[in-house]
């Protein structure tokens, strides 16, 4: 658990390594598995897969609509396609194919959004994928997964390979420490309580989970008991865990490396109808990011331990 170490001592992982090793492992025993890319072998770290299964790597070139459509066709032809590309292009460029070919058609295909959020930092808003969670959670029948660390990434990939339906998975490029405990098993719509608390609940997803844990430490020093929920799926949400948090703590703070209409909007829509609670949203709100590295941008938007702690104090009126 990351809380056992100080931030400076943590070993950070690129979740793409877990993604590709898991895919290769699955493909060894399941010849239905193919990868579909848009000249994104390198950026998807698919080199080991390309080397081991060259014939099962379908590279359509820089053509995202074709890529997602071909993925749907491969699924129709009995394959289990993992369509892997930079999340910004996979979602924005091919959104109608995601909506119709994957979700409306209910094909068993896995859309793998690489380097999501603001991972591309200085490359700017053209390459950021902060809209993906807000967009994709509105599409019926699509499971939207945002793993928090390598273990959860690997488990999400395994789950998606076996799930007969369309799935979107973010694979983080920004370094993250291990955050899920030994023996953890991913399931859609099941949140993980990483820290119990009674004053406020921080609901985080993906790369922000470790920041939420650090924020809870800061709050504890102020005498505020913060619960930390890791929410690995934006769709479906763990409604029971969220409703319990709304009942049992004094406010909810959502945290995401995305527009706050992703996880934040989803949680707000649930609570406002079922158990209204004071909320604050940490993430990016209605703006294109300025130039800066990913770590600078995370701090700039308050997607940081101190930013989350500030939001938690604010929601409690302290």
């Amino acid at each position, binding site marked *: 658990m990351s809380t056992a170490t100080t931030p400076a001592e943590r070993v950070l992982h690129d979740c793409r390594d877990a993604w590709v090793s898991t895919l290769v492992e699955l493909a060894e025993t399941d010849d239905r598995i193919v990868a579909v890319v848009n000249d994104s072998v390198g950026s998807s770290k698919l080199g080991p897969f390309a080397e081991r299964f060259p014939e099962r790597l379908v590279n359509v070139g820089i053509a995202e609509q074709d890529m997602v459509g*071909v993925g749907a066709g491969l699924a129709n032809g009995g394959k289990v396609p993992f369509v892997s590309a930079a999340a910004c292009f996979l979602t924005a460029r091919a959104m109608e194919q995601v909506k119709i070919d994957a979700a409306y058609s209910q094909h068993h295909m896995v859309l793998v959004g690489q380097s999501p959020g603001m991972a591309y930092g200085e490359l700017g808003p053209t390459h950021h994928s902060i809209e993906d969670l807000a967009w994709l959670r509105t599409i019926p029948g699509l499971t939207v997964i945002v793993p928090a660390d390598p273990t959860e990434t690997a488990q999400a990939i395994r789950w998606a390979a076996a799930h007969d339906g369309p799935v979107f998975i973010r694979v983080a490029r920004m370094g993250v420490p291990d955050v899920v405990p030994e023996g953890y098993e991913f399931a859609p719509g099941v949140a993980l309580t990483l820290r119990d608390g009674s004053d406020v609940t921080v609901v985080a997803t993906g790369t922000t989970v470790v920041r939420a844990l650090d924020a809870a430490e800061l709050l504890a020093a102020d005498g505020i008991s913060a619960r930390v929920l890791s929410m690995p799926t934006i769709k479906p949400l763990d409604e029971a865990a969220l409703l319990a948090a709304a009942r049992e703590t004094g406010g909810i703070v959502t945290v995401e490396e995305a527009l706050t209409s992703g996880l934040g909007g989803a949680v707000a829509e649930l609570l406002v109808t079922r158990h209204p609670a004071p909320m604050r949203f940490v993430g990016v709100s209605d703006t294109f990011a300025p130039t800066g590295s990913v770590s600078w941008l995370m701090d700039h938007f308050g997607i940081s331990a101190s930013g989350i702690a500030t939001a938690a104090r604010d929601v409690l009126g302290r």
Partner: protein
Amino acid sequence: MTVEEDLVPQVDPQAVPGDTLTVLGRVPSGASRDEAVAHLAEAARLVRRRDIMMVRAAGLGHIGGEFSVIDILVTLYLHAMNMSPDQLGDPDRDRFILSKGHAAAALYTTLAMAGFLPPEQLSTFMQPLSQLNGHPARTKIAAVEASTGPLGHGLPIAVGTAFAGKLDGSSRRTFVVVGDGELQEGSNWEALMTAGNHGLDHLCVIVDRNRLQQGARVADTNDLEPLADKLAAFGMEVVEVNGHDHGALLDVFAGVPAPSGKPTAVIAHTDKGHPISFMSDNVAWHHKVPSAEQVAQALSELE
């Protein structure tokens, strides 16, 4: 902007002709070519008669593009394709994707003619909760391989099914019909590049070349010519055919896969609204709904 609802006439249900469809089924095995052509011609006649009644009853539909593609659909489902209702679970069955999904009524009627749908179901076309949506949906009908409607989706999907077949060494062929106006969507050309570069010889792309799109002639909108040269340049084996000639169509489809090892692109020259005198090659009939008098006139021409 004109929306389709503006075009819905006041339909008197009593004035809508009956909803029967004589199901001919596939061309019997062992039939001669002449017998096959006669079977297909009769099936296409009955499909058109049923189609126009469905559109009239629903008050919605795309009859022009349906009548241009019916001969292609009937030839595929009743003769060319290795695909029958008892084969839906067979991974090696041939695949068909109607990329121009707005011609849904033609597909449904053809599926009924081929035994994939009970003919009585056709009367539910576009009714509330019907499986027969205004555009075909994979989740609603077992024989529909992919949901279509937005243009430019079917061909990339067909490339994927053909690619899967190639990986498996399967004998199955994938047929996809695109409208000619639809080729203005760039995704088709992405997919054609992929098909050509990967030598997907079991793929057959059929262009319903009726020369009209929703608002005007294709040539007056964003022209495709020289279409055959473009398709050839993308690595296709290009064949041009009269898309209403069942004999010519079945010969062309029998030639897939082409000996050249290239995917086949069939430019099927058709007329929107064929063969109805007042509809044929008339841009007004993209999604116009016929009056009772026009239905009677069309049916008399389809005797």
